[in-house]
């Protein structure tokens, strides 16, 4: 059913008009012009589209937009607050934890959800949290190191 939906995305209240069962990814990218969440598989298998929904890593390509109503959504686009980068963004830049950067959104947002519930995760916990996120360039170890670095960042 096509209707108006009220969403809270990156600390902004927005209204969109679309079918309520459209995957949230398309609404975030096309209606809200967000760049962070990426289309990778549309099947919830690769993690490129992850956003935080009430702090939980959520695959927006298999989440109907109506499921976002009444929640707080945070995307990579909104992770830096007032120009201050998130500790994960700083660490990913410092360690060059990306080659093509296409999976990076999912890596950072999945790691963000992990750090929200576990301030100082072990390497094993980081690998396990990221295991459902695919990277084809082979940057995995740098990504793990960047999450470790961010977890030790006092400004986190």
């Amino acid at each position: 059913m096509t209707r108006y939906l009220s969403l809270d995305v990156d600390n902004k209240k927005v209204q969109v008009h679309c079918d309520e069962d459209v995957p949230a990814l398309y609404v975030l990218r096309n209606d809200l012009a967000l760049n962070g969440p990426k289309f990778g598989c549309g099947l919830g298998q690769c993690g490129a589209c992850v956003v935080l929904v009430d702090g939980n890593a959520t695959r927006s390509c298999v989440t109907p937009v109506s499921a976002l109503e009444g929640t707080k959504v945070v995307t990579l686009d909104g992770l830096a607050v007032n120009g201050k980068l998130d500790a994960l963004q700083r660490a990913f830049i410092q360690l060059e934890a990306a080659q093509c950067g296409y999976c990076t959104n999912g890596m950072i947002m999945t790691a963000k959800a992990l750090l929200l519930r576990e301030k100082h995760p072990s390497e094993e916990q980081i690998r396990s949290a990221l295991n459902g996120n695919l990277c084809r360039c082979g940057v995995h170890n740098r990504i793990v190191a960047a999450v470790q670095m961010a977890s030790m960042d006092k400004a986190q």
Partner: protein
Amino acid sequence: MSRSQNRGTTRRDFLVSAGILVASFSLSRPTAMAQIVEGAAPISFAKTKRLDGWIRISADNVVTIFTGKAELGQGILTALAQIAAEELDVGVEMIRVISADTSRGPDEGYTYGSQSIEQSGSALRIASAQARAVFVAAASSYWSIDARAITIDKGVIVAADGRRITYGALAAQDKDLLSRDVTSSIRPKSTDEYRIVGRSTARIDLPDKILAKGVFLQDMRQPGMVFGRVIRPPTPGAKLVGFDPSAVRAMPGVLSVVHIGSFLGVVAEREEQAIRASDAVRANARWEGGEKLPNENELAAELLRFAKEDLIVAQTGRTTQTAPIAHWVEATYTRPYLSQGSIGPSCAVARFSAGRLTVWSHTQGAFPLRADLAKVVGLPVNLVDVVHVQASGCYGHNGADDAALDAALLALSVEGRPVKLQWMRDDEFAWSPISPAMVMSAKAGLSAEGRIVDWSYDVWSNTHATRPGQPGGTNLLAAWYLNKGYTVSPPLHIPQPFGNGDRNAVPCYDLPRVNIAHHVLTAMPIRTGSLRTLGGHSNILAIECFMDELAAVAGEDPIAFRLKHLTDVRAKAVVEAVRSATGWPVDRKRDGKTGRGFAYARYKNISTYAAVAVEVELDRTTCNVTVKKVHAAVDVGRVINPDGVKSQSEGGIVQGISWAMKERMRFSQHKITSTDWSTYPIITFDEIPQIDVVVLDRPKEPSLGAGEGTIGPASAAFMNAVADAVGRPIRDLPITSERIRDALRI
């Protein structure tokens, strides 16, 4: 072919002419064809002769460099910016890069084969050195002082008496300063003067990606943009025999239903509307016929039955008297079809407006793509532009070019509206070119002293090169379904040392007698194309696994055995570097659990040297293998960006292990059945060990591409490690638990 003839052509022209003229071309010795000859004019100057075609400096002192090469995730723009900044004496942050744009950049053919540093890097190095000299001369006459009294500090020209002027201010006074022919007469800096090249430099493209600044093609939004999807047949080669567009046209948001021959596509206002419309088209369309695909369970036997053309790759020492042969050893290795596996499926944006077609694409070859697009859509080339925009990592010929034609065909149906065309995940897996399955068969004779005295080798493969611009065909997927007679090119003959399926088929060892044959499969029921290293991966894999089998027969340590067949000091240096990093045990007792494997190769026989050692642990109950540790050493000649080389080498190792451990394209007799990540699994975080890469810097040697050097050795070292743990070789990829269980049962 002499150097002077080769110098005036691009790699693409070279390949094209080779394809037409050279039926079978073999070199028994590697040549330095692709390497920089210091002092020679860079190959890319042949097509872009004007200096301001490479460098422009604006009044605000921003240096814009132009390259025909594309950022594919490999960090090339950063390396090129470093080279230009070094020669111009500016900071890397002052450089902007325009890349692979037919409307305003140099034609440097394709971005492939790890040649961007060798080609674009050498052009920009010399052009930048010339530009600096032009500015010094201009400042010298502006101030009426001797040029020797002038220095340059971060883009500011400084006279000995303290007067200063920026490049930009001088360029603003004389707009034609850089409007002149390029010359190779200005000597670039010598390597000991380097302050930027050779030091790790932050990737210029990464912060924007990490901050979601919208740099990807998928992020492109244009006013009035609409969304497209294409609908492929159920079986490759099937013909559309019935389709009624009327119901689809009436769906919400649908702007256009494109039906040309057997090509089907839709355009809608919203992306989800385009997806729903494409589902409706799929449900409505009726198809007939199509290719019969080979039996995937008897793939090697099927490949050997394909129609083929036999080529001699190398034949040496046939008349030489060699030592008597004490042992003959034979082995055959196989590899399945592999997917590119980019995380982002292909995408394109196209706009047809006022008679001009502009396509934004993540192609590896903007210029060759433009020519084929123009031909298929029926426009003159000068009314078509292709602009490279970055997308998901590119490891070879993915669906980018095909998506560009799809988008163009849809854009022509909605004139004035930009169309964003996105392939779905199954489009990418099932319809982009995949890397050919291969069979490699080796036979060698060992002397009583354990030396290789005779080596013969056969490789069977479909072509690894089916790109737009190749002769004898039109290599764009949709073109074949327009019912206009477009077909794929015949297999491209790429001479050694580059090679096609025979890349790296000539061992990098000193062998007195070799006989190497390439059986080019001419039947192609499954569309194949280029993936990182072309045939290099499989040939390195087969040769390096076979070297281990030979070492075992000779009763020698695998590394010691290799060193006895190597004289190249750079080869020996990477082998020794890995041996000492691993603390390689010479007389280790097998425990049936841990396995160590080693492999070495020089990519394309003329490029990067790489040695890799892998340690695995085998669980004999579950038959699962865990990779515990990887050590590698690479020599890429003069290093431009050490961290970039490390990152590329690490990435190659991860991909090489993933191919060997997990990857296999699956198919039925009618279609590709690996259509998502559950049917085409790749390596994940918990399977990746610590990886240590040593980069041996050779500042006096030409720079070599780093993108592909470690992949073959990584796969081979992994296979050798598994063989060491299992106690016998497994010669078929991927090394699954089932194959390990079978090997343990024997």
